[in-house]
């Protein structure tokens, strides 16, 4: 599903050159729930941006869903993201002028699917927000906003979900709810990639890829085996 081969990303800032990723290679299959773990500056967000077609590697190749996107043109990348990726951000990034329903409807309209309102309603129902569909983002709690964001990503119908610190702005209980939602998507043929610095979250993953200073330091099942979400605590 996702194949990265010798990905290196270097930022040249005048005399200084910063290597965000160094010869990273990995493969992620369909329906995997993967956590990319690492401290701040480890390159995990850069890795996410590579997979999401938001950034271009200095060297190496990126293939997602049998699509080579390494040196794809601007238009092709737009098309790729629209058809393949669903983003979930730490700060939710909902559109403040649109209600919860309309934020999700946005994703459906983007795909040109008819009956956008009903489709959006369905996804909000899936994330348990039916009573709040006509509320604006500022009227929703952090957890509710993130659930809208997840519904929006799901509404694209795209096979890959990329979540960058999805629980970063949330309290523990709310974070757990969000993780449950994300984890459940891997059971319905979606590939879910969660980027986090929170080691506790990595315990529920099928696979944990740990990055440090732009390199993969470990890649495999979580230490101590996969835990249940109910066992998590931070």
């Amino acid at each position, binding site marked *: 599903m996702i194949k990265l081969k010798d990905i290196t990303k270097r930022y040249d800032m005048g005399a200084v050159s910063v290597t965000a990723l160094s010869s990273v290679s990995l493969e992620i299959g369909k329906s995997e729930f993967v956590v990319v773990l690492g401290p701040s500056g480890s390159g995990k967000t850069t890795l996410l941006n590579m997979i*999401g077609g938001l950034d271009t590697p200095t060297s190496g190749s990126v293939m997602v869903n049998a699509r080579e996107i390494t040196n794809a043109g601007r238009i092709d990348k*737009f098309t*790729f993201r629209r058809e393949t990726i669903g983003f979930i951000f730490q700060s939710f*990034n909902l559109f403040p002028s649109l209600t919860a329903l309309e934020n999700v*409807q946005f*994703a459906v309209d*983007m795909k040109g699917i008819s009956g956008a309102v009903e489709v959006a309603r369905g996804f909000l129902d899936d994330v348990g927000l039916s009573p709040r569909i006509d509320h604006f983002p500022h009227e929703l709690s952090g957890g509710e906003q993130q659930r809208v964001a997840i519904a929006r990503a799901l509404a694209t119908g795209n096979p890959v979900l990329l979540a960058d610190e999805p629980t970063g702005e949330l309290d523990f209980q709310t974070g757990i709810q969000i993780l449950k939602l994300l984890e459940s998507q891997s059971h319905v043929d979606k590939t879910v990639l969660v980027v986090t610095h929170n080691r506790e979250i990595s315990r529920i993953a099928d696979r944990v890829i740990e990055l440090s200073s732009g390199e993969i330091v470990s890649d495999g099942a979580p230490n101590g085996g996969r835990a249940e979400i109910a066992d998590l605590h931070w």
Partner: protein
Amino acid sequence: MKKILFWLRWAWRDLRVRWPQVAAIAFIIALSTGIFAGLGGQETWRIASMDLSYETLVLHDIKVNLTTGSFLPEEKALAVLDGIDGLALVEPRLVMDTMLDASTDDETILVSGRLIGVDVSQGGPWIERIHLDEGQHLRSGTTQEVILETKFARYYDLEPGIDVRLMGGFELSAVGIGVSPEYFMVTPPEQIGFDILGESSMAILYMPLPAVQAIFQQEGYLNEILVQVDKGADADLVKSQVAEVLRATFPETGFFLSAGEDDPGLVMMYEDAVEDQQMLNLIALFFLIGASLASFNLAGRLVESQRRQIGIGMALGIPRWKLAVRPMLVGAQIAFLGLVFGLPLGFGFTRYFGILMDEMAPLPYYAGTLLHPPSFLIAAGLGIVLPVLSTLIPVLRAVRSEPLDAIHGHLAAKDSGLNRWLKGIRLPGNTFTQMPIKNLLRSPRRTLLTIAGIMVAIALLFMFTALLDTFLGTLDQVENAIQYRSPNRMLIALDHFYPQDHAQLDDLRSLENSQGDQLMAETESWMRLGSRLHAGDEAIEILLDVFPADSMIWVPNLLSGELVQSNQHAGDQEKPGIILSGRAVSDFDLEVGDSLILEHPYREGLYSFRSEQTEVVVVGIHDNPARGVSYMAMEEAGFMGLSGLTNTIVALPAEGVSQAEIKEALFFQPGILKVEATAEFLDFMDDVLVIFTQALRVMQVVGILIALLIAYNSTVINIDDRQREIATMLAFGVRLRRVILVEIGENVILGVLGTAVGAVLGWWVLERMMLTRMETMLEEIQFVVTVRPFSVFAAVTLGIGFVALTPLISARKLRRIDVPSTLRVLE
């Protein structure tokens, strides 16, 4: 010192990022303050210049005008005035109307002329002195030297040294070009309603008095006396004494006295200066309002974009007053740039207006320059206060908020604005079509300020466009009224009244060209009289045309009433009927059938007239908007003692004969005062319109510029404010052009609302304010408020089209958004 440099360095970096927006706001302010500064001093300058010109060239205090055709022996007239106390100076003049041929190799110039015989002995004239612009002064004893009036010479590009001819074949040489106070504004009587437009159709020529007397065989005679009163003397007393003495000495001669300060041209010029200033102040005020709205909206939003940093500073414990320095520096930058742009713009507007005034109403002397320091100081003050206030208010708001609210303010909107009204309401279309309106409703204050700014700019654009259309529409109406039925007719004014069957007139009518063809297909005997209408306390000057009711050439086109009283008005047939303009009727508050008093000449002898008043009844209203144009059927005019007489021949050229041919042929005929083709008047109007058009176009361009700058700045700041939203859309794969379309959609709404309300506001201001002022300034004209469809189309296209498309200017900026960086959460 280091700390100050630190803040300045930081402010400089802010400016480097924001310089287009800062410059745009500064330019908007500069445009409006520049207009205010540039035009604020025109009244002071014009009045000071007129005072200087009139004083230097010695405007007469009193003028004795003899009735048309009357003359007095010069020596005797001056002698009887000699004994009156309080007279400083008395000068004789002989003023005769004639025709002038000033044709050059390039152009045929045959116009009405007025020959002013002045006393040049002893180095005069000392009253109504002639300011020489080019060439040389008149010399005593010369018989063929004239000075041409400046505006006439300028209009036709004539220079000293050219030869001119008077009717009757008198060859003269124009030795100089100059003007006297009486003719700072040339007001030919037959152009009532368009007094300011006389320069091309009437040539004023100055000549030594004996030479004029010789030309018109009036040696030793005068028909005007100019009087200068001693300083400190009672001018009214002197005036009444002059009148008394002349009446006693010359009882059979009609005359009237006028004061120099009542000269129509002078009065108009001084009134114009005051009223023009009022109108310019109104225009400047509108521009300032537009600039204020723009400044408060846009500068305020620039400051708000620093709110997060202010919040961080507050969280770090930095004093609020220190945090206020940086955003206030934005205001200072705008103020500084506003001054930098505004000063040259102000000078530019000053210069432009000076050139305009010199073209329209030139004066021999100017008091300094149009630069009016108080106006510039006020404009500079406004240019500083506006941006400072615009930044101060949001700064105060920012430093008074809680630090966390300010820090996190960028992550989520505080509220949804007016979108809460749409809760539960499904708008048509998808989210992309709904986004523009929802984005606007989210920030209602901001949206309203932007619309208001565009609205004021469009109101100005629409107002000036409609003003121009109104001028054009009114001129069209004049043209239609004049050219109705016989567009190529000619008016031949005779030097006095003749019996209609006079042999001289028969010769005139049967004039032939060199091939023996008759020049005129049709001729009719009319009369043209200067008169006055009285209704209650009101009185207006009119030009009364007496026409044959069964005229084959031309009769006035009536809006209501009839040409001649019918039997229906049997009871009123004792009163003669008169046809008036709509403006005269409305000014006097009359209707068809109402009566008023006509003050008119009454013929007593062959060449003598007295003034008489007769009650007349309004029988019709004609379509010419010029107030003073009036008509009376020949059948009704017997009460004036002029039955069977004529002083004007109306003629139609024969087929294949041009008006110029007839003019040239008539030029050498005796008894002709002047020859006019109706089309010439309209050609001249077109020339004058060019000046008005240029001035109005400048204002239109400024209005458009302000609207565009407001829209551009608003768009750019919108994009900055919504970077995260735009980056989110791009991350989801929404194409850039769709993002731009959303922005365009917002601007379309802003443009539509701004243009719609602006057009209505512009119309309202035009009707209520501008036209009221125009009708006061040009009280002889009935303005017809007109807006041409093309003008509406242009205003709408510019107002909506340009505003809507400004997001395209930011396409490059949008393309360059670094999506990952923009979406990254800043801890």
